[in-house]
Structure formats: C-alpha cells, structure tokens
C-alpha cells in the first residue's frame, strides 16, 4: 500500500513537472484606461501568435503556449506593477508581452521584470526614455522610439509646407517624450512651435488650454494625446471655437473612435502611426479578419510580432527561461536568415530547430536597432469624407 501511494505521488509529481514545461506568456495591456479602445485588438494579436505556435506543436518539442492577460491600466504604475507581479510570481509566466503605455512599462521593467529576470517585449511603449533605461538586457520593443516619431512628424509637416504649429501633449511620459522629441526636431528643421502646452487627461474642461493654444496660433495643432482622453477633448474645443481646422494626429490619437466622434469635422487633418506596407501587414490583416478582429488597428500587428519574437527566441535558445533566450531575440529578429511573415511561425520554428537562421519580418517589418527597439515604419493617414485612411508609408 505504501509503495502504491509513493508510486502515485511520484507519478503525480512527474505529470506536474511535464505540465510545468508548458510555456506561459503574460499579456499586460491597458484593458481599462486611456487606451481601452485599441488594447482588445492588441491582446487578440498576441493571442493569435500564441494560438498559432501552440497548435503547431513545433515549439520546444511540443510545448503548449498559454497567454495570460493582466491589466496595466496604462496610467496607474502601482496597479500595473501589481498585475505584473501576480503574473510573474503566481502564474509563473516565462515572459511578458507588454506593457502598452511608456510610464507603466518603465515601472514594470524596474520593479518586476528586472527583479525577477523576466524578458519584456512591449508592442507600443514609445518613450525615448526607455532606450536608455537600465534593463539588464531584458527589455525589447517592437514599437519605435518617439525620437523616431519626432522625425516622421517633422517630415510630414514639412512635405505639406507647414511652417508653424501649436503643440499640446498629455501630461505623462509618452506625451512629454513625444512633444520634446518633436519640438527639437521641428525647430532644428527651421519650423516654429508657437506654444507647447500640457493637458491633463480626464478633466472636466479644456477651454483654458484651447484658449492659450488659439492665442499662440499656428497653421496646424499637433495633439500628442490619447484618443479616449484629453486629446479628443482638446480637439473638440478647438473645432467648436474655430481655433484650428487642421490637426496632426500622432500614434496615440489614431483610432477608429475618431471617425465616430468627429467624422467629417476632421476632414483635411492628418497624422501617422506605426505600420508598414510590407506584405506581412496585409497577410496579418487577413489573418486577423478571419479570427474576428481588426488587424489594422494601431499596434495590433506589433503585438503579434512581440509574442512571436518571444516564442521564436525560446526555440533558438532551446529553453523557455528568460535568462537563456534574452540573448537570442536580436538573432531571430534581424538578418541574415529566411524571412518570416505572419502565419509562418510553424515554418520558422522548424527552421530554427534544424539549426537555420531566420529573419523575422512579421506584421510590422520588425528590424531591431539600438537597445532593442524597432527601427520604425509609419503609415501616414489622412481624413477624407469623415473617415481616415492610409495614404502613404514612411
């Protein structure tokens, strides 16, 4: 009897060990908060990659991959840290796909990822500050730094012959980082920024901000804010009072919600958000459509790519431990090797298992530079007849 008991316990332990080899990836995004209208498509993107790999059975001799969601809230560093802490310590995730907003991403990186040695790949944190943050080689992003976006905004405005702009930004790491990067770039290129005014999110009234912006003047108002928050509030005030007719919309402001709230009122306004015309983007959009969500939504493709990079580098390192695979992310993301597009993760896993090099291109034409951030491809959008559409890739 005793032997039988021992045997059962032993076998139970065996199975639990076998189960522990399954890979878990934490998906930390702001499912509530200022980005709540684009995060569902981002989460779905990461889960699409996870489901694809899991179904292929090609990762680490047939490991199953599971995505576990956590809420970063986008703005509350304490809540985000707690969510990440839970995923790392109680769910024991092998890596984190996230977070979304720059402020909470920095907080999770310093308080949870570095403390526990867990790799983080963010699809959308774009603050230039994260390029130089201490990260022990654990932090990567499939989104470009806003230093790059500052250049893009300047180029687009100059191509349209805009010489002077007013600038308003949401008062946080993302807004301030982007505003500073853009201002420096635009002024260096000979343009004039008449005013750079912060706005707080979730406030009752933006007439003071709009009044100051209008008085300073400028041909275009650059709104470095969030579509679900103060950014839209400022645009509403500026349109209603006739202060500005044309707006430049950076990545945080581009969302289908703009079509709903403003529609034709924004005709003639333009902007840009990360995206590429590589065939990967189109493939991904179709895959997303088949899976029942909008793959062209901002940062959705980047989320797919972030999850894919994590799993491919695990395969390359033959280990799901962060300490092992963190050094392989650059190898699988960049040339040389066979180019890998969305939907080809199984092929990539097999190639890696055979010892071949892969160059992951994915949905957003991933090319990691510097401290592990995307070199950056942007799509320029313009409003016409009440909806925005992509007119050009940069």
């Amino acid at each position, binding site marked *: 009897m005793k032997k039988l008991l021992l045997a059962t316990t032993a076998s139970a332990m065996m199975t639990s060990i076998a189960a522990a080899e399954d890979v878990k990836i934490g998906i930390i995004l702001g499912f509530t908060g200022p980005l709540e209208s684009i995060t569902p498509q981002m989460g779905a993107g990461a889960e699409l990659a996870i489901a694809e790999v899991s179904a292929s059975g090609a990762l680490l001799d047939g490991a199953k991959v599971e995505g576990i969601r956590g809420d970063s809230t986008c703005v509350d560093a304490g809540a985000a840290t707690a969510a990440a802490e839970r995923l790392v310590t109680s769910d024991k995730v092998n890596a984190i796909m996230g977070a979304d907003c720059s402020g909470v991403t920095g907080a999770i990186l310093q308080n949870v990822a570095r403390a526990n040695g867990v790799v983080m790949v963010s699809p959308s944190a774009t603050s230039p500050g994260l390029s130089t943050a201490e990260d022990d080689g654990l932090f990567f992003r499939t989104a470009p730094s806003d230093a790059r976006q500052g250049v893009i905004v300047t180029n687009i405005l100059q191509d349209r012959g805009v010489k002077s702009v007013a600038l308003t930004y949401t008062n946080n790491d993302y807004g301030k980082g982007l505003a500073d990067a853009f201002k420096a770039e635009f002024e260096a290129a000979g343009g004039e920024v008449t*005013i750079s*005014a912060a706005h*707080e999110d979730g406030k*009752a009234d933006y007439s*003071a*901000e709009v009044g*100051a912006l209008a008085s*300073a003047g400028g041909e275009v108002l650059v709104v470095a804010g969030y579509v679900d928050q103060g950014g839209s509030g400022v645009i509403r005030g500026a349109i*209603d009072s006739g202060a500005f007719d044309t707006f430049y919309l950076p990545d945080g402001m581009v969302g289908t919600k703009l079509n709903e709230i403003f529609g034709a009122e924004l005709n003639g306004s333009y902007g840009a958000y990360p995206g590429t015309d590589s065939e990967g983007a189109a493939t991904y959009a179709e895959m997303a459509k088949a899976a029942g969500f909008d793959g062209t939504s901002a940062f959705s493709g980047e989320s797919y790519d972030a999850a894919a990079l994590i799993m491919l580098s695990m395969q390359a390192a033959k280990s799901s431990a962060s300490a092992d695979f963190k050094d392989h992310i650059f190898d699988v993301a960049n040339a040389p090797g066979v180019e890998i597009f969305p939907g080809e993760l199984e092929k990539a896993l097999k190639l890696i298992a055979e010892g071949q090099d892969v160059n992951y291109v994915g949905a957003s034409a991933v090319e990691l530079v510097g401290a592990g951030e995307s070199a950056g491809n942007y799509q320029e959008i313009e409003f016409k007849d009440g909806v925005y559409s992509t007119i050009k890739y940069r």
Partner: protein
Amino acid sequence: MDFLNAIVALANFVIVPGMAYGAQLALGALGVTLIYGILRFSNFAHGDTMAIGTMFVILITWGFQSAGITFGPLPTALLALPFGIALTGLLLIGTDKVVYQFYRQKKVKPVVMVMVSLGVMFIMNGLTRFIIGPGDQRFVDGERFLISAREFKAMTGLKEGLAIKTSQGLTVVTAVIVVAILFWFLNRTRTGKSMRAYSDNEDLALLSGINPERVVLYTWLIVAALATVAGTLYGLDKSFKPFTYFQLLLPIFAAAIVGGLGNPLGAIAGGFVIAFSEVTITYAFKKVANYLLPEALAPDGLAQLMSTDYKFAVSFSILIIVLLFKPTGLFKGQSV
C-alpha cells in the same frame, strides 16, 4: 476694427466658455450648498449624483430618439430632463430612507455623515458604470451651434470668429431660470420658508411645528433637480463620462466654499469665480494684445501669466486665500 477683433477673440476663448463652465459649476455648487445648509454635511456623493441623473436622462433620450421623438433644433435631452429628475429624486429619497435617515436620527457628527456620503458616492459610482459603462456616451442632437465661427466671420467680416454652441446658450439660460425658480421657492413659498427656518435654527423650527422629514424630503428633491440639470447641461456641452463627473466634485466644492457654504448666492458667485480664474489667468493674451497695442508695443512672447498646467493650482490658491482671509467665504456662509 482691431478693437472689435480683440473683443471677439476674448469673448470666443474666455468669456463664452467661462460663462458656460461657470453656470455648470454654479448649479452643481448650489446642490452642495443646499445640502450643507439644510442637512448640515458636505455631500461627497454629489458628483456621482450628477452622473447618475445624467445617465437616466441619457437612457430616456435614447428611448425618445429611437421612437423618433425629437425637440426640433433643441437637444432631445431637454424633453427627457423631467423624467430624469423624477427618477433621480426617487433614488435620492430612497438613499435617504435607507442610509442617511438612520444616522440623522442618531444625531451623528457631521464628519460621520461625510464619510457616509463617501460610501454612497462609491455605490453610485459603481451603479453608473454597471448600467451605462465607463466609456464616453453621446446623446447630443439638434443644432450644434447658435452661431459658428465661420458664419460669424462671413457675417461681420472680422478676422476673428465667435462661436456660441447651442449647449452653451442653453446652459446659461437654463441656469438663470433654475436659479430664479429656486430663489422664488426659498423666499416666497411656505415650504421654502420652513426650509430656511430649519437651516437657520433646527430646534426653533421644530418648536414652531415644522415637520423635519418634510423639509428633508423637499431638500433631496431640489438637489435631485439641480444635480440632474447640471449634469445634463455639462454632458451636452462636453461629453458624458462617469470619471469626469467624479472629477467635477473638486471644482464644485471649491466653488461652494469660495462663495460661502450654505449660501445659495455665494454658490453661484463661487462657480463663476472658479471657472473664470481657470480660464483667464492661464490665457495667453498675445492675440488680444496684438490687436490692441501699436506694433512697437506688441509682445513677442505669449503674454501668458501662467502655463495652463497650473490652472488647478490657480483655483485652489483662490480657495486657500479666501479661507485665510474670509473663512466664511465671499458671501456670508457657515465656516467650515
């Protein structure tokens, strides 16, 4: 011409938005001040009462809109307003019976009542999100502008445009009507007088045969009307989002305290003081100055006293200064 341009620019970006925001704050502050004056506690649930009242109005407005009932050029929400007020009134009276009455009969200290209202606030907060969700809701219809900036420019030939939104016009007009009715009620009717008597001296009022429960009942009904009207006007002018209504609580309390807690006139004055201080002190006077001053004197900079980051600091500095030098507020209210 330049003088006119300067006036129009100032009106468009300072006076018109300041008036509308001030009227919204004033209506909110009136509700807070009435509860403080008559029921003797600071009602922290007021912001969320506004949210829940507006939610009722929105739900009924949607019903009307889908049934094809509109109010011509005016927003349908105005038609739904009486129903919203009635529902909010029922809810507030229910809350009073279930929660506040118990503590009132025990004659607890005001600070306990404040904590109780904090609890009510969280419940209303959750209820609103549970029913209508945490996101933005749109319920505006009818004409958006009384006069748009473009029309104004074409009409007058001035360089500056003046835009007045229907909602801004409505806000000010409705606020005037509501305040007029409220003052008539408080000063001229029997019930109003008994409410003021109860506020001035509770024991004396009881001795002279005033029924306290009736006074309480009427107070909640008036507060429900004020909160729903303020919330709906605010929602029509900006947008409805439960979180921003919660955030409104601070400027509303600032307005009520600056004006003098418990004093209805003070609440109105306070609302406008807070609204205009937020808008004017942070306004960049560059444009206005460029029109008014000869070229040699025109400022190069923005001529802005403070950056807009500080607009909340401005209204709260005013609050602190008033409390330091006139603890009862600008108009004579009760000291806190």
